[in-house]
Structure formats: C-alpha cells, structure tokens
C-alpha cells in the first residue's frame, strides 16, 4: 500500500523547483536536483519525524543536491543574464508607468480586509504562486531569495553579481508587482472567496 505521504511529498514539487531555480538558474539542473531530492525523500520518509514542516525537511534534502550540482556546474554558472541587465535600467523607467508626474500612484491601492484569513485559504496560495510567477525579470528569483529564503541583500548581491542599489530596485519592483497582482487576483475579489 502506497504511503499517503508520497502524494504530500510530490505536492511540494513546484516549491522545490522554485528553490532549485533560484539557486541554479538552469531549468535542467533544477529538474535534476528536485528529482534526486524527491527520490531521496521517498526512500527516507520513515525518518521524517515531523519536528519541522514537511516543506522544510524536503528543502534541506534539496539543498545538498543543489550544492552538489553547483560544484559540478561552477565553471558554467550563469549570473545575471544580459536581458536582466537591460531590465535593470528599465526598472526605474517602469516606475514611471506606475506614478504620475507629481509622484502619486496612478492606480491607488485599496486597503486589504482580513489578510490573516486569506493566509489560511488554499486558494490564496494558488493565487500567490501565480503572482510570484508573474513578477518580471530577475525579480521573481531575487524576491524568492530575499523574502522566502530570507537571504541577506549582501548575499544576494554577491551571488547575482549586482550592486546593492540594483538589488533594492529589483526588490522594489518585485514587491510592487506582487502587491498589484494579489490585489487584482485576490484582495480585490473578496466577495468571491466564500468567506
């Protein structure tokens, strides 16, 4: 009889892919790392004591696979692509599209009612992931490292080989994009969430 935790473990694949992509920046390598991590996890699921969350446990297994692959791929490692570098100079221009000439937001944000209740709903997390996918350029990856993994901007700058000010611009843009997307796809549609 199949362990019911197998399906649970598999359900974390999208998150694990995001993690792997944020570190490896190569889709194929990320796939390889995640496959190996999931295989390891399935083999050793009996040792998972439940002290940390399943996601935390899976991520810690994946971390080792990622480090292995990073060592192997060290010489071929991609840093910020030229398209990302071009995007950096566009970032300030992008802000021009959000604010009028007096510095006011063109699309006024609305207050979000009961955000704590949103975090308890599975469908909120589906919307959150979709919005994360839509963050433009390197922003998704940098936001993931900063906010989800909790890496310092210093570590991110070193890893991405960008300046602190570039990092802050990327994060500003990512936060604005995510905020706007969540407002459109969730907080602006509260009457539809059946609460």
């Amino acid at each position: 009889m199949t362990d019911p935790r197998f399906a649970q473990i598999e359900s974390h694949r999208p998150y694990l892919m995001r993690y792997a992509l944020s570190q490896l920046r190569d889709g194929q390598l990320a796939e390889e790392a995640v496959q190996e991590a999931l295989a390891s996890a399935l083999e050793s699921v009996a040792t998972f004591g439940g002290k940390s969350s399943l996601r935390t446990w899976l991520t810690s297994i994946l971390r080792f696979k990622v480090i292995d692959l990073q060592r192997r791929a060290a010489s071929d490692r991609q840093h910020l692509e030229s398209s990302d570098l071009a995007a950096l100079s566009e970032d300030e221009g992008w802000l021009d599209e959000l604010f009028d000439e007096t510095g006011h937001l063109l699309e006024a944000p609305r207050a979000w009612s009961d955000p704590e209740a949103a975090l308890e709903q599975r469908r909120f997390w589906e919307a959150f992931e979709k919005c994360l996918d839509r963050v433009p350029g390197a922003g998704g990856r940098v936001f993931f490292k900063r906010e989800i993994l909790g890496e310092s901007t210093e570590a991110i700058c070193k890893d991405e080989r960008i300046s602190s000010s570039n990092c802050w611009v990327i994060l500003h843009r990512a936060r604005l994009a995510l905020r706007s997307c969540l407002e459109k796809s969730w907080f602006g549609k509260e009457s539809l969430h059946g609460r």
Partner: protein
Amino acid sequence: MAGSVNCREASRLLSAACDRALDAEERQALQYHLGRCAMCRDFESQLKILRRAAERFRDGGA
C-alpha cells in the same frame, strides 16, 4: 532629501526599509509623509502582509 517626499519616493523607502536601515533623514521624511498619506500607509501594511505570506510560503503555505 528636502525633508518631504512624494508617494513614489515613499514607496521606494518603504521597500528599502525591508532590506536595510534607513538613515535619519530618510526615516523622518518617510514618517512625515506617512502621517499625511493613507494610501502609503496601506502600502506599508501590505508590504508587511507580503513578508508574512512569504514566510508562510516557505513553511508550506496553508
């Protein structure tokens, strides 16, 4: 910085405050603006929600 900022600048400072310490001048200008701008106060609280959501996402979401 002249001691007052507009929403665009305030938005930049609010985001920057998530990543580094603001200097005294920046903090003062931002606080002055937030005292007068409900939209930027909303943005400030939404940034906090984004951070909480990101931490929950790391731990498995819902």
